[in-house]
């Protein structure tokens, strides 16, 4: 694969209350919820973000609640890839289940908001700094779920 995108960079321990605050979970649709993505950290994030931009963060991205609406609003906005030093467990499953590619990369401090990166199967190339970083790809089991576009399609094809 080759997927190029502009980076939005966040810090460590970005919890699900930052990604989507609880008071918006009663809104009738993910589309409406997505207007509030990352609101506590960046109130105008949903306006500034363009589909295909890549989210990058430090350790433990998506910690906190089990709300799948957190990765769902990101997907709704057009997030296909999230790069982080590590992910919290429930967020990890939820994002994979929605077909979002997750990349665990040790060097996310070398990636900043506004950088453009190119992602391949095992490398992230920061085109802005001209540095390349290797990562260990997802296991085949998880890669398969992402490739099918998420758990729903994966299970449908398995039955």
């Amino acid at each position, binding site marked *: 694969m080759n997927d190029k995108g502009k980076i939005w960079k966040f810090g460590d321990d970005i919890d699900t209350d930052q990604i989507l605050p609880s008071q918006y979970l*009663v809104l009738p649709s993910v589309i409406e919820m997505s207007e509030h993505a990352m609101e506590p950290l960046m109130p105008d994030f949903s306006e500034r973000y363009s589909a295909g931009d890549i989210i990058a963060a430090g350790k433990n991205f998506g910690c906190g609640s089990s709300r799948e609406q957190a990765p769902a609003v990101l997907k709704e906005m057009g997030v296909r890839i999230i790069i982080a030093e590590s992910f919290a467990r429930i967020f990890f499953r939820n994002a994979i289940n929605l077909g979002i590619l997750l990349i665990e990369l040790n060097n996310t401090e070398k990636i900043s908001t506004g950088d453009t990166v190119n992602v391949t199967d095992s490398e992230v190339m920061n085109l802005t700094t001209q540095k390349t970083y290797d990562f260990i790809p997802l296991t085949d089991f998880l890669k398969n779920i992402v490739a099918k576009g998420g758990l*729903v399609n994966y299970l449908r094809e398995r039955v």
Partner: protein
Amino acid sequence: MTLTEQIIAKHAGKRKVIPGEIVDVDVDCLMINDATITHTIDIFKDRFNFKNVWDSEKIILINDHQVPADSVNTAEVHQKARKFALEQGIKLYENEGVCHQVMLESHVKPGDLVIGADSHTCSYGCIGAVSTGMGSTDVAAIMGSGKTWLKVPETIHIILKGKPKNGVYAKDIILHIIGELTASGASYRTMEFSGETVRGMTISERFTLCNMVIEAGGKSAMIIPDERVTEMFGDHHLYQGFFLPAENTGYAKTMECDVSNLNPKIACPHSVDNIKDVKDVEGIKIDQAFLGACTNGRIDDLRIAAKILKNRKVYPGVRMLVTPASVKEYTKALKEGIIDIFIKAGATVNHPGCSTCWGACQGVLGRGQKMISSANRNFKGRTGSPESEIYLASPATVAASAIRGRITGGLK
């Protein structure tokens, strides 16, 4: 194998499992609450095209996060849950209390494998069940099939020794451990608690420990059942073919903690691993004090706070909110005259549910406001404005701080 591994193996139909292995498991019970129910129903019906749930007896719906409905949108969420429960013949609890408390009271047994659409599902380790939280797509898949996949977690073994000082509770101990491990220190792992301190704890105190393992990133919690669990469930449930593993059985890491040295702890904004001694932050003015949540809203928590609040008043201008964890716990408190003490002290007693901890109803915070809370999360904006602050502590510290209007420890 650890008890967690044995329980997973049994539910995977295997004799042995090893940490890191991915297995398909049968789920004993599935819990879903109003925070995510509509999203889950939509995925169940419109994306998976399931018509019927796999077993209506094994699925529990609980309206607890935003009850009673505080807006038209919330009312629609609850209505959708009611309609689905009726159509599928599923048990629905409404306004009976926080889902995890209700599950412990009525549905979870030692040795069970339980999945919940809520991150604090890890609480059920307190009676020897393997339980973890998942999101809507996983939960919808289980709703239709009764199965899911699990990666067998490694275990962090935490041995608690010594008798806590007066005024130090299970909450202080788990806050200390999260501070040591950090917010991601137990990621993907089980936290198993043992040792003389744990043996001396009530199920409610063990619940407090297990409830918060997710705040260190933990997948599940485990306390090997003993006579306290037998008192609740009878011997029968302890002998489902599990052997009780000797200590040092296949743990990835072992931590020992002498709790006799610990002082009351507090998690400062905006991260649960930002732990300090209460005495080091004493004097910070508070606007609100919250006593409740699945972490610390049970009768023993209410008793501890009531003992401190008896014949005292909440500080002028401070709002103290009390939300018992369930109707059962609320009823006990009413009978013991504890609710009366709270009301005389000037506290507001809210109806059982997630309440202020969920942060969308029953007492949200405005800009610049500070709250001390017995709940489990203090994320930025968790209870309203992103410019508010939440401090997490034991019911004793919450009650003392409510009286003084400032963060205070050690009031008896």
